[in-house]
């Protein structure tokens, strides 16, 4: 455990005092264009500042990209988005079929070492694998070199987001921080009922599931690692996985 840092320091006190002083004069509201947003800014009682409820009432935020109303719609939107992002979606009926599909991948690509973690969806896949399996466990010492030498990492996820084609992973339930980023290929095993409509829904789900104490890392993965730094030309596999497979069960 780390010793708790002092609650405030001199520099912190100075900066907070500067902030309080600066905010004594209120700023004008931004120039809003839509009536719905204007309605969200209610005039404050008493103070000069308008009280902001910051748009909580608009469930689903009907102005962001669509995430789908029904389960079937969400599956369709998610699949379309993942394919546009150049991720590969494999739809399978059950966990046994997921294990079989991943075995085919391992054989076709000649993966020598595959990494995974303990999870109801991942364990059956790992036990059925023909190649060597590296297990990332909280109880064992973390071996960066062994993980780096793996061809692929197989993880579960917290949620899948239809709206953006994102996969939400966490350090608590998806094998830590490195498993989904260090190996050259990332394979996600998820069930259809893990699909949520929007980024906001996924964050709510994580907050409710981990009430009181968030995992030290929560990450939205949206397609294979990419860069456009050389002449703004898209290249996949900059530092993270070059390929991303989503095995969708159900």
């Amino acid at each position, binding site marked *: 455990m*780390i010793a708790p840092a002092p609650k405030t320091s001199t520099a912190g006190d100075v900066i907070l005092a500067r902030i309080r002083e600066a905010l004594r004069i209120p700023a004008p509201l931004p120039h809003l264009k839509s009536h719905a947003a204007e309605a969200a800014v209610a005039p404050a009682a008493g103070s000069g500042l308008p009280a902001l409820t910051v748009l909580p009432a608009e469930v689903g935020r009907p102005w962001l990209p669509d995430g789908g109303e029904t389960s079937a719609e969400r599956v369709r939107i998610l699949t379309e988005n993942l394919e546009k992002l150049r991720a590969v979606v494999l739809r399978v009926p059950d966990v046994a079929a997921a294990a079989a599909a991943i075995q085919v991948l391992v054989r076709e690509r000649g993966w020598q070492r595959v990494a995974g973690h303990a999870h109801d969806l991942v364990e059956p896949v790992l036990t059925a694998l023909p190649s060597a399996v590296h297990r990332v466990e909280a109880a064992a010492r973390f071996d960066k070199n062994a993980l780096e030498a793996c061809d692929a990492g197989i993880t579960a996820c917290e949620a899948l987001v239809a709206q953006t084609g994102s996969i939400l992973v966490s350090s608590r339930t998806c094998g*830590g921080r490195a498993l989904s980023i260090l190996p050259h290929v990332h394979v996600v095993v998820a069930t259809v009922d893990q699909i949520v409509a929007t980024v906001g829904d996924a964050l709510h789900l994580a907050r409710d599931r981990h009430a009181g104490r968030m995992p030290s890392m929560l990450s939205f993965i949206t397609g294979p690692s990419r860069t456009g730094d050389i002449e703004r030309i898209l290249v996949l596999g900059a530092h993270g996985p070059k390929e991303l497979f989503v095995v969708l069960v159900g």
Partner: protein
Amino acid sequence: MLAKKQFLRDAAAHVRDTGHRSFVRKALGGYHTNRDLQKARYRDWEHARDAASLAKWSAVNRLDELLPRFVANFEANGGQVHWARDAEEARTIVLDLLRAAKAKAIIKSKCMTSEEIHLNAAMEKDGYGVVESDLGEFIQQLRGEPPYHFVFPCMHVRRDEISDLFGKHLGSAPTDSPEELTMIARRHMRRLYVDADVGITGANFLVAETGQISITENEGNARLTAALPRIHISISGIEKVIENLDDLSVLLPMLATAGAGQPMTCYNTLYSGPRQPGECDGPEEMHLVLLDNQRTAILADPEQRDSLHCIRCGACLNVCPIFKNVGGFTYGTTYQGPIGSVITPHLRGLADWNHLSGASSLCGACTDACPVRIDIHHHLLHNRRNAARTAPSRLEKLGHRLFVVAARRPWLFAAGGAMFRRSLGVLKALRPPLLKAWLATRDLPPAPARSFRSQWAARQEGRSNPASVR
């Protein structure tokens, strides 16, 4: 006045370099297409901008309440907060942390606040080797240059230059394939992530509700930087605080769409502190440096307070005709483009940096592109006004006085106009010093035969006598 001279000199050189300008335009061409495609997926983009703008407005205007709330939650998760009033204090904090950690190898992901405080130079001076892991920043580090664009750091560099650079520094074989060049950097960097004992990152948002910091990136280098080293140090401006995860869920897609035409940036990661019991990996310590460095001065200006809403998406640079014609280095600032021209006078002083606000056509493309509705082009005007107030130009004052004298006397105004119409040709031929610079790149129109007032009078006469119209 050194900065202004440098700007004028570099801008003049840059506008003549048509090869470079067309290269930059071409590189940005794809951005416009992708951004429009993604914007079209929003059911109401303008409403989404309102929401993003309000989220930032309410956070910045309640910074006194939200920043302490963020700090309390972040510390409760085991993270350590360090406050830095200015650049020097921030550098000292980071160097002290490196010393305490006995750091041997440092890996760094993209962090504009570290550019702002010139951290790399300070670390190198103290003998700490640091490697930039973002591909664009890595290329710029090897070239010994600052970023050209704060989101696309090496967008001005051609692939053959990168191939030569990698050949010289990494011993790689020449190639003209962007993919192969990316893989050379990838192979080089792998070992460095594994061996580093300290990882340094920036931060895009600080979520007060949960005490998490949010980092946005495409390459996975920030994920690796915050996963493998024993110590994670993050540097963030104090204005990055937002209230809650609901606001984040709007800002993340907006940042990606406005900045790079993506539905979401490839990795959007929330860190709440060091590795927790029951987790497989992660750093033992997490430190967050909260940087003021004149941000409270911007906060104290209610008129321009909204420039702290900036989420550094870079959209205003991508659409700016000035940026495209003078290039990123000409600004001489950490933050280039329209938003840089607004905030740099606050960060470094209005007297020396006001010229940036003059370098604008006031077309408003930046304001239209801004996902959080910062009134960028009006702030350029505000800077001009403030500069004129604090250090008025005598020549301009004299000019306005003379105009007042003439405008109050119609006969004098008419006489002046007639004289000007007749002498326009002579002025063009003579090129007096005051007009010389203007005429170097422009031409004067031919003088009209009659004054506006006489043309107007003739037109009114025609109106009252419809038969003569046309």
